[in-house]
């Protein structure tokens, strides 16, 4: 547990290996890279992720020296790269097509770069042997590229690009040509080799699973800009825009108008509540009211102090519910003053669906204070998002909600957010099932549940009326920029 987390980007002392400074690249009228500034640190496994044409390959080709920035600078270890030709950079690239030299054997392919560096013969031999061992290719050394399989070719390409021990290795869709199973194995192999060699890797991919698996940080690109750079879990759990939320993984987007939750008012009566429009919403609202009334609340000053001054430095502690992975239970321990609610009892017959059983209804779910509620559809209760930034109050917002954060059950659960709908479709994926649920107003919502039981025991089927529920912190509130 004492292992320190690898996060040089958080260390102000750490010097970046690569610095993009206001880099722009235009091809004629087309702007491939648009004033991009980004630091990448030594030993990072940095993934550039984006749809085709977003500029990720151009960025990589500029690092390799095949393209020159129209404006701006790229620094490698503090040195401006613009005047260094491709063959003199301490940067090597693994090409998407592998670009193995078809007329040379595996051995000669790997030795190619070493021979160009005019290394002594014995050293070349030792290094090639080492690379062959690293990539488990010893027995294929004398084969030509067309005499080995796709996976072996991929490893030759990797060995060849690593042979010169570059400071930086660029991987352009390195696993694109492999089938799924082999790709997954190779991902771990890549990570392993990256760790062993200590080389900085930059990988270009359009496969988000691949980026999430291998990378220490992921940069999501769109139209020549980096939209968000973050660790894979933050990219997934805390996207900074609708674009990122929608690009990474599956997501439900609820468009609506945000209203501040006035939970800081001394009495519930002072809180302007919308008229409950459905009986379901009535329940949820009543619970919210009771909840808010029971809790001692920080004063406005205290809250502001926490939000504006302390929280950015030491993190939020007034809202301690883990933002990253919310509990499936509707009643996690929250708030500074509230005692931890006992975990609801799971009955064996309430499987992957919401854990709340009817008995749990006696304990009103703890909805964390603060945040926003989102009025998204007339006839549907507003959605509560206690983690929503209050700065967005009054704006058009999108609540982005991952399907696996939505529980689906036949009985009405007690939760911060409850919606009723009908199962239209079930996508059975083996380990999980995705339920396509149509709400009363026609909105389709995807909910996922792990198939922990054999299929015959599962209760929910087509045309069933079900309840969807999620906690007040399950989603991410984003500004509606569409």
């Amino acid at each position: 547990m004492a292992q320190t987390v690898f996060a040089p980007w958080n260390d102000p002392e750490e010097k970046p290996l690569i610095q993009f400074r206001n880099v722009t690249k235009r091809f004629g009228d087309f702007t491939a890279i648009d004033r991009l500034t980004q630091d990448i640190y030594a030993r990072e496994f940095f993934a550039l992720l984006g749809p085709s044409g977003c500029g990720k390959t151009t960025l990589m080709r500029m690092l390799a020296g095949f393209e020159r920035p129209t404006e701006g600078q790229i620094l490698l270890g503090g040195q401006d790269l613009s005047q260094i030709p491709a063959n003199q950079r301490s940067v090597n690239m693994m090409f998407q097509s592998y670009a193995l030299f078809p007329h040379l054997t595996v051995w000669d392919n790997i030795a190619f770069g070493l021979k160009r560096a005019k290394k002594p013969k014995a050293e070349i031999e030792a290094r090639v042997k080492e690379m062959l061992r690293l990539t488990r290719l010893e027995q294929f050394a004398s084969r030509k590229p067309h005499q080995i399989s796709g996976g072996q070719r991929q490893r030759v390409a990797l060995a060849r690009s690593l042979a010169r021990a570059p400071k930086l290795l660029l991987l352009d869709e390195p696993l694109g040509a492999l089938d799924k199973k082999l790709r997954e194995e190779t991902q771990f192999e890549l990570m392993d080799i990256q760790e062993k060699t200590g080389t900085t890797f930059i990988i270009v991919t359009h496969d988000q699973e691949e980026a999430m698996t291998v990378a220490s940080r992921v940069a999501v690109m769109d139209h020549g800009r980096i939209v968000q750079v973050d660790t894979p879990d933050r990219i997934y759990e805390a996207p900074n825009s609708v674009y990122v939320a929608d690009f990474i993984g599956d997501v439900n987007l609820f468009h609506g108008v945000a209203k501040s939750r006035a939970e800081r008012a001394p009495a519930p009566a002072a809180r302007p509540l919308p008229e409950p429009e459905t009986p379901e919403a009535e329940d949820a609202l009543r619970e919210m009211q009771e909840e808010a009334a029971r809790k001692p609340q920080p004063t406005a000053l205290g809250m502001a102090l926490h939000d504006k001054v302390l929280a950015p430095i030491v993190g939020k502690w007034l809202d301690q519910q883990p933002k990253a992975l919310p509990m499936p239970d509707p009643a996690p321990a929250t708030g500074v003053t509230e005692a931890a609610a006992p975990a609801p009892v799971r009955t064996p017959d309430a499987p992957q669906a919401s854990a709340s059983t009817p008995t749990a209804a006696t304990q009103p779910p703890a909805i964390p204070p603060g945040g926003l509620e989102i009025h998204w559809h007339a006839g549907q209760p507003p959605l509560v998002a206690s983690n929503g930034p209050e700065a967005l109050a009054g704006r058009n917002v999108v609540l982005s909600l991952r399907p696996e954060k939505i529980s689906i059950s036949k009985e009405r659960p007690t939760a911060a957010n409850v919606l009723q709908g009908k199962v239209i479709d079930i996508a059975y994926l083996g380990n999980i099932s995705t339920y396509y649920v149509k709400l009363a107003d026609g909105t389709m919502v995807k909910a996922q549940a792990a198939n922990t039981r054999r299929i015959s025991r599962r209760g929910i089927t087509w045309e069933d009326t079900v309840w969807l529920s999620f906690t007040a912190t399950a989603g991410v509130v984003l500004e509606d920029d569409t």
Partner: protein
Amino acid sequence: MKRFSWFNATALSFGFAFLYIPMIVLVVYSFNESRLVTVWAGFSTKWYAELFRDQAFLDAAWVTLRVAFFSSTIATVLGTMAAHAIVRAGRFPGRTLFSGMIYAPLVMPEVITGLSLLLLFIGLGIDRGVLTVVLAHTTFAMCYVSVVVSSRLATFDTALEEAARDLGATPFQAFRLVTLPIIAPAVISGWLLAFTLSLDDLVIASFTTGPGATTLPIKIFSAVRLGVSPQINALSTLLIVAVSVGVITASLVTKRNAVRRAREERAADQLA
């Protein structure tokens, strides 16, 4: 598709007859006993023996081979360089004009090429001889080579050259160590094409030749004007045999390589 039909058979026979009857006649009469080309008088190989005793023909053959060898070699170097420049240089101002200018001699009447070269050599005061024929043949063979090589380069994966440069090769090393070995078959067939073109060129050679540089086609042409001799038939037969052997060998080698490669690829995939 594969069904036999009288129509197809007839069309095919006519086509082949059109192509090969003149050659068959030529070959058959090269073994004629008689001096008269059109009268069959029995089998003999004496014209072949005579051919090899005729010093003028041997000289012309030697000149032709030298001219063909040097001009096709120079044309291959220049044509490959031009093709590489056109295909790889990307967009530069005047690219279309430049590539058009390289291919222009393909459609230029030979008489004009020959005449313009003649005028140039006279203007520069170069004595006409083997050198001028070599230069002239290089000029017109170069565009054929660059057509062949650039069509190969167009399908060549640029990433290979980039990989070579990425691994520390200079642009010239990348070309010499990676591009050239891979496009070698195209370069060789370009060379063969240039060689053949030079071998049988009459028009340009006769414009640019001088004393002591009589090529075989010029020699044949002037000999025929004095009357067709069976020697010429024998010579032509030898040329046909040489060309056929070359073409058949080349295609057999190519085919065998392709088959072996396909087999190895299958084996590699099964092994995976």
